[in-house]
């Protein structure tokens, strides 16, 4: 099966995600799709499999133009997408998962477990994999679950298989099995789309690579004709415009010293320092563990061992309240589920962590609360008619300002911002950057986790790059370039 997608464009609201994308998938070829987070890789594949509808462009399959109304239809036509979030029912056995949508029945119309087990076992043998078919899926490893998903798709006689970061959750051995399976699939003439951030895998397992950036396909080349450096350059190739305000604060003493911290589930431990008035950018690929590190420091999640020192005092951080007392604030990446109570008014959200400070007697004084919220809302430039409006009425950018306002009110010495500008418009972004500068001028230190390279480069005094749960390197402002960051982030040399 040969698929040609040409001139594909897609916008979500005002956000143009894809523009004029062209890609060709061939039988028996492993095609790597690479690009930064948000470059449009997943959206493109979602369009191919009928999850989204393209605004423009055509998809032709073996020369015939067509689109699928939904993913199921695509699957029935031999095009399957294995998402990072696996489609597995954890309460059913692997075998039941395999046959849930098309059970084999005996002549009485009852489900024929025996026949299914036989067929599945034969399939496993052919592919050279071992699976505990009668075990509950939830009790199996992620690798085994993924194998099951791949197996299910192959049994549907898939001609095109799209895999989104399939190796991200796998052990080395499982990854090896995955590659073995991919080779078998290739031999059967299946076209594979391999979305990955891992350079080494791409260069050892793929035949062709397409690099996407800002919704464009930048380059498509056989893997033998391209170097890792060239791929990285295509992935990041843009200059940082004049969008970011100039950093004027000069960082001084160390305010936060993290030594040997091991967040739960991490193999390596994490050490770094943060200086007064500094913005420390934290870069890395999705799933590298940046958020987990921040959650461990703030005490949202557990960690094993290691020490955290804040302003010279050791922090025994078991709960967020401990971190808050030590002067740390945490603006999480999920502003709707972790940052704001959407039913609450803007004012009530801003005062929530500050109730005890504003009203030490714990009897609420309306005037004090209102003027507190009003002052901060004004300072942050929240665009609203009144602070009595519910937080849910605000746009994303203004909601983010409210989240920042409630923490700024706490007068923290350290603010952790996880993806502070995700999903907000340009104007609000600039407001937030200016505010970050203002805060650091006042001696506040900021850790900024961000998946947007320009933002990391534009705002950070230093950049810490996280790769697969370890600190791959910390770059000074003059060393930090898109290339140097991406090289560290992808584990390249």
């Amino acid at each position, binding site marked *: 099966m040969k698929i040609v997608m040409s001139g594909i464009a897609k916008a979500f609201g005002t956000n143009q995600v894809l523009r004029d994308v062209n890609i060709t998938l061939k039988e028996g070829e492993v095609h790597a799709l690479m690009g930064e987070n948000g470059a449009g890789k997943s959206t493109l594949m979602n369009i191919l499999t009928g999850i989204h509808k393209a605004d423009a462009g055509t998809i032709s399959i073996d020369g015939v133009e067509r689109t699928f109304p939904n993913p199921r239809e695509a699957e029935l036509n031999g095009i399957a997408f294995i998402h990072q979030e696996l489609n597995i029912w954890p309460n059913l056995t692997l075998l039941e998962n395999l046959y849930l949508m098309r059970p084999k029945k005996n002549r009485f119309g009852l489900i024929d477990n025996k026949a299914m087990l036989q067929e599945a076992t034969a399939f496993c043998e052919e592919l050279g994999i071992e699976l505990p078919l009668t075990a509950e899926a939830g009790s199996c490893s992620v690798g085994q679950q993924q194998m099951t998903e791949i197996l299910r798709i192959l049994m549907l006689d898939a001609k095109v298989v799209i895999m989104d970061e399939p190796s991200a959750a796998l052990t080395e051995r499982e990854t090896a099995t995955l590659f073995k399976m991919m080779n078998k699939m290739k031999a059967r003439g299946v076209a594979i789309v391999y979305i990955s951030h891992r350079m080494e895998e791409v260069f050892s397992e793929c035949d062709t690579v397409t690099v996407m950036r800002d919704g464009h396909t930048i380059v498509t080349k056989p893997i033998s004709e391209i170097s890792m450096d060239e791929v990285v350059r295509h992935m990041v190739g843009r200059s940082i415009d004049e969008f970011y305000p100039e950093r004027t604060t000069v960082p001084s003493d160390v305010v936060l010293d993290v030594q040997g911290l091991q967040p739960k589930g991490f193999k390596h431990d994490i050490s770094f320092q943060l200086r007064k008035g500094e913005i420390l950018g934290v870069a890395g690929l999705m799933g590298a563990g940046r958020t987990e590190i921040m959650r461990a420091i703030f005490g949202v999640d557990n960690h094993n061992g290691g020490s955290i020192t804040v302003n010279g005092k050791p922090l025994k951080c078991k*709960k*967020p*309240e401990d971190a808050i007392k030590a002067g740390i604030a945490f603006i999480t990446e999920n502003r709707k589920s*972790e940052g704001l*109570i959407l*039913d609450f008014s803007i004012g009530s959200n801003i005062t*929530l962590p500050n109730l005890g400070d504003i009203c030490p007697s714990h*009897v609420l004084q309306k005037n004090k609360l209102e003027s507190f919220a009003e002052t901060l809302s004004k300072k942050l430039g929240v665009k609203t008619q009144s602070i009595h409006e519910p937080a849910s009425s605000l746009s994303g950018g203004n909601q983010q300002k409210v989240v920042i306002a*409630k923490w700024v009110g706490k007068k923290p010495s350290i603010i952790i911002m996880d993806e502070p500008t995700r999903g907000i418009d340009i104007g609000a972004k600039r407001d937030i950057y200016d505010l970050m500068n203002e805060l650091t001028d006042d001696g506040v230190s900021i850790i900024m986790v961000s998946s947007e390279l320009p933002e990391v480069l534009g705002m950070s005094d230093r950049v810490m790059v996280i790769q697969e749960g370890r600190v791959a390197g910390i770059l000074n402002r003059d060393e930090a370039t898109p290339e140097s960051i991406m090289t560290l982030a992808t584990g390249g040399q």
Partner: protein
Amino acid sequence: MDSKAMQYVKKLGPLIGLIALFIIISVMNDSFLELSNLRNLLRQVSINAIIAFGMTFVILTGGIDLSVGSILALSSAIMAQLIITGTNPELAILLAAGAGLLLGGINGLVITYGRVAPFIATLATMTIYRGATLVFTDGNPISGLTQDPIFHAFGQGDIGGLPIPAITMFLAFIILWFVLSRTSLGRKTYAVGGSEKVSYIAGIKIDRVKVFVYALTGMLCGIAGAIITSRLNSAQPTAGTGYELDAIAAVVLGGTSLAGGRGHIVGTLIGALIIGTLNNGLNILDVSSFYQQVVKGIVILLAVLADRKKA
């Protein structure tokens, strides 16, 4: 109608319902509005209302308390036993409240530190407390407690024409209204129900808030139990059976969301009055008690459906 006006109608919905109910019943039978009946009505409402106030706090945090009736019975039995063995009856009233506080506190601890879902936790303690009451009383009422006048007044007396249980109810209402609307504890009750995650990250001691709301509910059940004990001058081991449903109904009728985070105790007072008025009115109208249940259920359903429509 603009959205502001809509919001007022929504807020006033339960009150409008209550007034409509009053008008309908009084048109159908004029003895309903007689002072003696209204006094009677308030006396009947007070027990459910006092329990429902606590239930409002619990439901605002996103929880539920099924054990209220059992707490009422157990604190009533403990109180009666104390009086029989010579404890000062007025002191016994306080001790009943204390027993309720303790039993409710246990609910809170099981839910927070045991990480048991509130429904399951209080379902279990509902059975345990009821069983303990039966063990404690050997299944028999404890009666003929005392002739102490102040003790009797607590459940039966009047001050200036108002039944004392109703006065207790209004006092509880005022205090709890203040706690809910004017203290940081009240604000945190809403916050926990609005989003536990956001509250946790904001440094709110979620467990403490939860233990508080269950302990508060327990204490109110203890007070309600004392009122019943005083009124009957005895403790019944089966007292309070099914009270959890009336309390939850009052909270829901008052517009508080079972999902937590939204609602108010003012609505709960009106909700309890609606249920009480229905009970009282249907009795006066001589509707058979079998039909009464059907009518009550329908009213609850209609109220919730009307609320959904407006939202």
